């Protein structure tokens, strides 16, 4: 056998051993059953709420994807966050390390097993995703991209869980820290974005020239003899969310939403949850106007129509005009996952140079 085949055979052995150890018995299937029941209820309610039989399954599909991400990030840390240090506590890590299995195979195998476990949730949600697709209006690109990115995000959480379990000595602590990482990415980014944006307020100035008096010709609909006011200056504070939009890019939900190709209706409005979130995040990229001059007199002389002020850009225009951020976020997550796994590998390598304080290697 070649070296790589030996490596892969050992890796797969660790994966299967890990799955037999951790994912076992009735309780696991009960958990998956409860998950399927929840997704079923959510699907039914969404079907009612979005009138999906008329508007298509985009809303249902995107929400189920988010639901799988939510449940995956809630369950994965508990299943992966003690995989290395839990084995060390149980005395099975060292007995594996004295065999011809390398530390790389152990860490990587445990990561793959944790990832496969998380993907089981995606598989359990599959019937409902298919139902949403059958409702129509979900593009093939949206299906492919959102499922792939979701799978990658579940992999990142599994990698962080396994990685932290190799870095930290105590299983409870590494599980809690994995949950904190999940919370920091999912909620912490939102809080940091909102707080930092509103804390860095800037003064915006607007100068207005108002029409004081004019003569309106009903025949032509034009104004003449316009008397203009002097410049009227007013100031107000605006938050600078445009400095901090990249924080939101690190949010896994934003990554999934932003990665999916935008799907908009004729009026330029998003047709699924992905689009709504992506538009919201991308609109934060635009800097606020810090100086604004409105000359209402000129507008009046040119023939006030009301149209000139326009409506703002449509959501689709905002979406198309901004930089997509999902690959930045996904790259950060992949680096985080790979980094913690590498660190765990270095900490678990044998023969060991250092032992963490108070830990037994056996």
């Amino acid at each position, binding site marked *: 056998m070649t070296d790589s085949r*030996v490596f892969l*055979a*050992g890796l797969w*052995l660790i994966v299967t*051993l890990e799955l*037999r*150890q951790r994912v*076992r*018995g009735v309780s696991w299937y009960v958990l998956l059953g409860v998950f399927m029941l929840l997704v079923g209820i959510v699907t039914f309610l969404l079907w009612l709420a979005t009138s999906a039989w008329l508007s298509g399954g985009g809303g249902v599909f995107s929400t189920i994807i988010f639901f799988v991400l939510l449940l995956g990030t809630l369950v994965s840390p508990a299943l992966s966050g003690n995989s290395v240090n839990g084995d060390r506590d*149980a*005395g*099975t*890590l*060292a*007995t*594996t*390390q*004295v*065999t*011809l*299995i390398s530390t790389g195979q152990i860490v990587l195998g445990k990561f793959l097993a944790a990832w496969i476990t998380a993907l089981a949730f995606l598989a359990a949600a599959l019937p409902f995703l298919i139902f949403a697709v059958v409702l129509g209006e979900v593009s093939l690109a949206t299906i492919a991209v959102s499922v792939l990115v979701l799978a990658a995000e579940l992999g990142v959480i599994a990698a962080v869980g396994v990685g932290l379990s190799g870095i930290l000595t105590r299983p409870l602590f590494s599980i809690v820290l994995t949950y904190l990482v999940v919370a920091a990415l999912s909620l912490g980014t939102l809080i940091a974005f909102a707080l930092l944006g509103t804390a860095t307020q800037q003064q915006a100035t607007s100068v207005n020239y108002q029409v004081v008096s004019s003569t309106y010709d009903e025949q032509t609909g034009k104004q003449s003899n316009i008397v203009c006011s002097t410049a009227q200056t007013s100031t107000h504070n605006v938050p600078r969310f445009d400095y901090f939009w990249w924080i939101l890019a690190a949010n896994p939900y934003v990554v999934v939403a932003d990665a999916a190709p935008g799907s908009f209706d004729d009026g330029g409005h998003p047709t699924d949850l992905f689009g709504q979130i992506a538009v919201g995040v991308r609109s934060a990229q635009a800097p606020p106007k810090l100086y604004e001059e409105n000359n209402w007199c000129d507008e009046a002389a040119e023939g006030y129509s009301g149209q000139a002020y326009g409506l703002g850009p449509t959501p689709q225009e905002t979406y198309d005009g901004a930089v997509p951020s999902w690959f930045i976020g996904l790259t950060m997550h992949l680096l985080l996952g790979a980094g913690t796994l590498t660190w765990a590998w270095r900490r678990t390598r*044998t*023969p*060991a*140079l250092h*032992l963490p*304080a108070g830990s*037994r*290697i*056996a």
Partner: protein
Amino acid sequence: MSVTTVFDAAGAGHAIVPSGIAVTGVSRSFGAVSALLNATLTVPAGSVTALIGPNGSGKTTLLLMLATLLTPDTGTIRINGHDPVTEPERVRAIMGWMPDTLGSWPSLSARAALQTTGRLYRMTREQAAVRADELIALTDLGDFADRPSRVLSRGQKQRLSLARALVHSPGVLLLDEPASGLDPAARTSLRHLLRRLAGEGSAILVSSHVLAELDEMADAAVYLADGRTASPEQVAAAGASARAWRIRSLDAPALERALATPGVVGALVQILGVDQLGTLVQVENEASAAALLHNLVLSGVPVCDFGPAVGNLEHTFLDLTRSTGPDAEEMK
């Protein structure tokens, strides 16, 4: 043999000349605590060597280093000529380690655990299944082989742990407290098994607290105290020092009278007292013990039991730990 491939991989390019374990000047500290200081020992192929020392003397640290899990700070280790630090894979292919902790995959049966271990040593599925059956028979686990290992008793887990260390038929065996938790029958079969493996050419290092048992199976002993191995001179001196002998007679009053008679007890003998098993006397060396027995028999005392009160290993061990001063006593 079903696992010759493993050996071939380990011995590739080398003529296989098993040289056993050689440890020279090994030290290891954890932070400010020195676990081992300049430990030196050899375990020749085809022999059983006992590793003896009080709790915390560094036995497990030494075994972890021999088992390729821990690097020494200084000194060299050779397992059949291979360095565990630079060629851990070669050492792992020829070394079996039974840890002092009873770790086994809780949801796997003993049979599945042994098969999995075999496959971790790169055996095929069939080779691993055959070897697992052999080991289940060897360690007498047949009745429990298909139950999940979390329901096994301590002694059964201990046997499983031994079987796992033997999966790849290693030429070097490191056993950390193998007899603890075993019933007397299992202890006897462990002793026979280790003697047989040594007879087949394995180098075996056994750490244990049950010194009487090591007496019966060990060819040699290594004494560890405060992380130091006792030198051969120290061991010889301790082994030759005065020790207690136990005398039992069919006629206890006659023995008492004889011991009180001047001339029967030599100058080198001192009476320590009487316990439920007989009379204890301190004897300076074996020559004075022989003289005492001679005199007792001549005095007409019906002696039915005359021998050292403690085994050789225990006597040497106790003497060495006493001689290292009050520190060693505190550690116990």
